[in-house]
């Protein structure tokens, strides 16, 4: 019976520890994804303000330069706009964000920042577009910092916390 108990203890500790490590990994991924979103907005800004590429193509070019899962946001909004079914940027962007939400580790407030672009993208002259991107990138930078700080404090908690929780459960059961 001892071997069975040992296996059970190991499984509980490994399960809780693994869960904690996964959670810690997601915290780091969020930081990385906000950073990718900020860089992608930089590409998109250049496509719009310097090259004056039409928005659907600018989004497509940005998607090509962006890593998943953020890529999906640009790819999906470009696809919806290129379909020419009367979809506005606001609707295309909202649809793309909904898909991103399913695949990314971003929080609601991160998505909210990205959503502020919906009413601005393509809807004004070069100067206003520049200002919009400046603001958006600034907000993402602040969000990235906040996410990084939060990750620093929570990473250890979740990394060790899982194993501690597993051990506590084992002790309690024993």
């Amino acid at each position: 019976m001892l071997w069975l108990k040992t296996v059970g203890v190991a499984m509980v500790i490994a399960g809780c520890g693994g869960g904690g490590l996964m959670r810690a990994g997601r915290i780091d991924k969020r930081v990385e994804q906000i950073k990718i979103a900020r860089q992608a907005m930089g590409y998109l800004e250049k496509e719009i303000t310097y090259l004056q590429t039409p928005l659907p193509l600018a989004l497509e070019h940005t998607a090509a330069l962006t890593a998943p899962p953020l890529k999906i946001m640009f790819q999906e909004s470009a696809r919806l706009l290129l379909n020419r079914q009367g979809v506005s940027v606001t609707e295309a962007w909202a649809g793309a964000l909904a898909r991103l939400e399913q695949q990314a580790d971003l929080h609601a407030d991160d998505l909210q920042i990205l959503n502020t672009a919906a009413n601005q993208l393509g809807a004004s002259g070069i100067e206003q577009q520049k200002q919009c991107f400046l603001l958006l990138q600034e907000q993402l930078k602040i969000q990235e910092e906040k996410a990084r700080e939060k990750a620093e404090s929570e990473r250890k908690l979740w990394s060790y916390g899982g194993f501690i929780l597993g051990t506590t459960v084992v002790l309690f059961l024993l």
Partner: protein
Amino acid sequence: MGFESQRLIIDAIIPYLSPPVGRIIRTVEPQQLKRLEEIRLRNGQPLFLKIGEQELAVNKQGELVKDLRHAYIVQGEDIYRTILAISDNSLYAFEEEIRRGFITIPGGHRVGLAGQAVMESGQIKTIKDFSSVSLRIARQVKGCSEPLLEHIYRQQRCPASTLFLSAPRCGKTTILRDLTRNIAEGSRWGPPCTVSVIDERSELGGTYRGQVQMDLGCRTDVLDGCPKAQGMMMAIRALGPQVIVTDEIGRREDVEALQECINAGVAVITSLHARDLEEAQRRPLIRELLSMGVFQTLITLSRRQGPGTVEEIVRWD
């Protein structure tokens, strides 16, 4: 031609309209659709279609109605979505066009815009809060200039400098476009010539993002969006044309550039807004231009028997 015309509306125009307006236009009778010249959207007003000589309102079912109470009323959302579609959701890429009051969409169709003008240092900076959109359908009528070729070509088998006169919507641009193609490709009246088109309003070539949408012939260079006077001088210096074609002259600098072209041995084919020669001569600048003997042929057009009806041909041989 009828089927092509109908397909043109369905494939090239409807995708640029708001979905409700697009659905209405799609259900308009094919016979009417093939004669459609303009679609007019005004915020809070009936949706109007210009079909031949008539401007008719259209209801939700796509039926042409005389009683405006039954017409489909254009919503602000229709204007907004149409503007987004014609600008490819990229107003920033059309700042110059918006400043000039129109955007050319693929196919060379011209979309006129009205709204609130934003001024800066006495110049229009942009237009905002769009209130009207007028979509003018460009059609290429190949062969429509052929009956005129014998009056434009002279004994040396070279095109002569020609001035077209007509009121708006009489087919000037369509004839100039076909004439350009005929001259560039050659015909039984003369060999092919190198032609430069100065297309200030992107109407002749319907250029969209560097691609000339209309068939202007294989020996034609298009200076798109370029002011006529500057364009004529640029063409002479850089493109070596035998013929320059441009639309709607009228400014002092246009007349001066035109003289330069003639002195350089280049034939100029152009047009002017005036019902007839008498009306044209009431404008001092044009009177001066005509008295210089710059043009060898003058052709007056009207819509009496449909667009492009030739009313008068004057030859100063």
